[in-house]
């Protein structure tokens, strides 16, 4: 009986843990907006491009400023996503190379509501990527 109660307690505990962990996993790494699918379509030459501003503190600060101007309205000030936009801290996005992310910014995902940011000069898109990569 004691073993049974212990097993029940363990089962109950693991179920509770699963219940708390499941939403977090769902929130952080599902592709509900189809972002990963689109990013995976980035051409190889883009995928391998290095961020010319990588590791530059000024570029990260400029990227944060640009993020607040252009992106925070939809993705939230903390970039965790809100309403119809993706969580930019999600592992699936953070795993993408800088080149893939900048390609995605340039093209957007028009069918899913993500605008193209090709109107921003490439330099500013790289600065945004430099900032996004600090959100791991």
């Amino acid at each position, binding site marked *: 009986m004691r073993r049974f109660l212990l097993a029940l307690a363990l089962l109950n505990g693991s179920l509770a843990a699963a219940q708390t962990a499941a939403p977090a996993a769902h929130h952080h790494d599902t592709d509900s907006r189809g972002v990963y699918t689109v990013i995976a379509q980035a051409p190889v030459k883009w995928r391998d491009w290095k961020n010319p501003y990588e590791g530059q503190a000024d570029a990260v600060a400029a990227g944060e*400023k640009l993020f607040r101007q252009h992106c925070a*309205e939809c993705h939230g000030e903390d970039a965790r996503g809100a*309403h119809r936009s993706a969580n930019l801290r999600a592992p699936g996005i953070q795993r993408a190379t800088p080149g893939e992310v900048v390609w995605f910014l340039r*093209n957007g*995902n028009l069918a899913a509501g993500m605008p193209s*940011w*090709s109107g921003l000069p*490439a*330099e500013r898109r790289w600065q945004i990527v430099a900032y996004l990569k600090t959100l791991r």
Partner: protein
Amino acid sequence: MAREASLQAPGPIPSPFSGPLSTRAWHLLFVVAIALLLAARASAQEPPYFVAYSHQMEEPGNLEIEANSIYATQRGGNDFIAPWMEFEYGAKGWWTTEFYLDTQATFGDSALFTGYRWENRFRPLMREHWINPVLYLEWEDTNGADKTMKEVVGFDKEADHAVPNAEARREHDHELETKLILSSNFKGWNVAENFIGEKNLGDEPWEFGYALGASRPLRLAATPRPCNFCRENLVAGVEMYGGLGTAKATTLSGTSHYLAPVLGWQLLSGVTFRLSPGFGLNDNSHRFLLRWGFSYEIGSFDRKLRSLFQ
């Protein structure tokens, strides 16, 4: 714009407010301008053109409110100012819809509402390319006194605007305007080419026109600190536009053409100012135009509107 009159009741039509714009109207405009300046946030990334269109669409769910005006010198008549309002909404990532209200005030004559326009732009290709096409469709319900010169087509010329308002407003134009917009972004530059076809739904031939634009921010990379008076917030460029005759006579002869430098300045508050002096390139054109305007973008307007009713 076709200038032939359709059937209208004879005799003068009373103006909604005659004479120059009232002091009260200017106060109202001032209050609206201040309110917009104090409001927060926008994310515009558009070139500062007044006539040409790029392939930049409004962000989905955002509403951009613009107040623009044109001042033109007029030989053989009175100079005028034609203000218009634009309400641009991002219906989808690939579809932008826009509503216009046009007015004008002619010095020594009168001020009047001249009509409305409803425009839709569709981006058929979902990815960015070297040249990005956008299809444009607009319905216009304006009268002959409209002087906003949002496009120049057919044999539009300066003399069209010399007609007194009381007479010009009797003409009603129901027009369908189409454009093929081609636009490219490269190394910070935007280059846009627009080919215009306009059809008066009366017995008029198609009229054609063009608009070209090129612009670039004065600084490509952003600075780390927020600033209003820095080069990255300024975009400079130039527009050229004019008529190309009609389906019966496609020609440059007898048409008017303009060259206009443009300058845009985006503030941190999200308000964007634009200014464009324009110069007529031949005798059919107004000698001088001055366009100015400001816009303010309300992010996630659809969500904010819905929340009012929940």
